[in-house]
């Protein structure tokens, strides 16, 4: 079982030796690439890449390149993939972190709509409609 971020933060606050911290918490330190992360989620969610891509609404060629690790997507494209997976918010944040991006932030209005969408299993188009109605920028596909 992986340690929660808060747990790691507490350990780090008390830790005097950074080498020892890295040594003992190595398994919990994320060093996966986005591409590796996406592959793991495919297995975890037992989904086909083509289905995830179709649901994400992304350009198929570009999406395959993201999976292959030859493209560095924008934050919106990673969010589109979250909807492709029909992911939980926690898993979505894992993806964002692997892509070197900030977590979904509930204090941010636009992110809050995305979180609401993921929690309520909305599809990309439905979330886009919601964002549009609320005067926020739609997810860039």
């Amino acid at each position, binding site marked *: 079982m992986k340690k929660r971020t808060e747990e790691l933060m507490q350990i780090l606050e008390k830790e005097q030796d950074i080498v020892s911290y890295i040594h003992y918490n190595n398994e919990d330190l994320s060093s996966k690439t986005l591409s590796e992360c996406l592959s793991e989620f495919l297995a975890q969610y037992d989904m086909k890449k083509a289905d995830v891509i179709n649901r994400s609404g992304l350009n198929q060629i570009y999406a*395959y390149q993201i999976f292959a690790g030859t493209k560095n997507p924008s934050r919106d494209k990673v969010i589109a993939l979250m909807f492709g997976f029909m992911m939980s918010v926690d898993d979505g944040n894992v993806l964002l972190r692997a892509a070197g991006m900030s977590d979904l932030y509930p204090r941010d209005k636009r992110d809050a709509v995305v979180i609401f969408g993921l929690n309520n299993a909305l599809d990309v188009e439905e979330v886009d409609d919601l964002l549009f109605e609320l005067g926020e920028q739609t997810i860039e596909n």
Partner: protein
Amino acid sequence: MQYATLHRGVNFLIGLSEKYDILDTLSESNKCVVMSARSRTDGEQVVIRVIYNAAEGILQSLLRVKSPHVVQVLDVVQDGSDVILVEKFIEGGTLRQFLDNGGQLTEDEILFLFVQLCHALTAIHREGIIHRDLKPSNIMFHNGVAVLIDFDVARQHDPFQSQDTVYMGTKGYAAPEQYGFAQTDKRSDIYSLGVVMKELLGGRITGVKYQDVIKKCTQFDPANRYQSVNEILKELRPFSKAGRAFHIRQLRTKMSVPKKIGYVVMGFYCLVVLLPQPHEVTVWDYILSKILYLELVVLLFVPFLNIFHIRDWFPFLKHKNFLLKILGLFLYAVAYVVLLLETNMIVNALYSEQAKSLLVS
């Protein structure tokens, strides 16, 4: 012939999406993804191949390859580290599918194939491209013509490199040097070609008239193989004279959905017309009558389902020009009516007297 153009960057990727509707993902691996797509302008079906981390150098060379035995590249784009190829869609099956379906070729047919693949390799080697993955699943057939596909692991020969850094190819077909002993060059493709020929001959080449050619192709040491494909062609020439006249028979191919539906509809009508009619008094009357009716139904479907490979020999049916194709269909319609009238006349003359009287009344 449409000439391919080289494009670069994201703009072309957007253009690509506007130009083609992606229909389906055909195959996917860690090297590439292959999709079928349809042109929005002329409805032509194409294959889009995204090759990850592909060498840029190969692009210009691929554009220059012009051979009926190498898949025609319509568009190429270098997109970051990837290469996106738009290729002409080849109707037909692969040699792998043919073999898996229990298909067998005669010695002369294999020779014919051998020669065609030599021409394919000549065309790519001339541009400095080494295929590196020649195998039955990368050889397609269209109207009896073998076409080499899949340049995913192809590379350009670098005379200054002593060995390949990454092993690529398919076990069983790849030359020994592809496992890292030395740099691959055109002799690696010659090795794979020999292995494919051996497989087609069922693994037994003893007694085959061109056995020595295959043996020399598959030598472990590249120095002992043919040094160029032209050398193979020269050696095959005496054998291939006899085989020049024959055509490789159409390999069993995967049937498209509309074609399947066409066959089902035709089958249904055939069953309907087989129902006995009042004027078919004797068995002989029944047979005669059904010959006429079946001709009426089957010949109607012939040009659309390409039965008897009619598009290959009937005038204009295969023509690219739409109006000439319509002319071809019109000519076929005339031939259809004439043939039916003639058959009707003959059948009517041969009916029994009772049938004739029933038909008159």
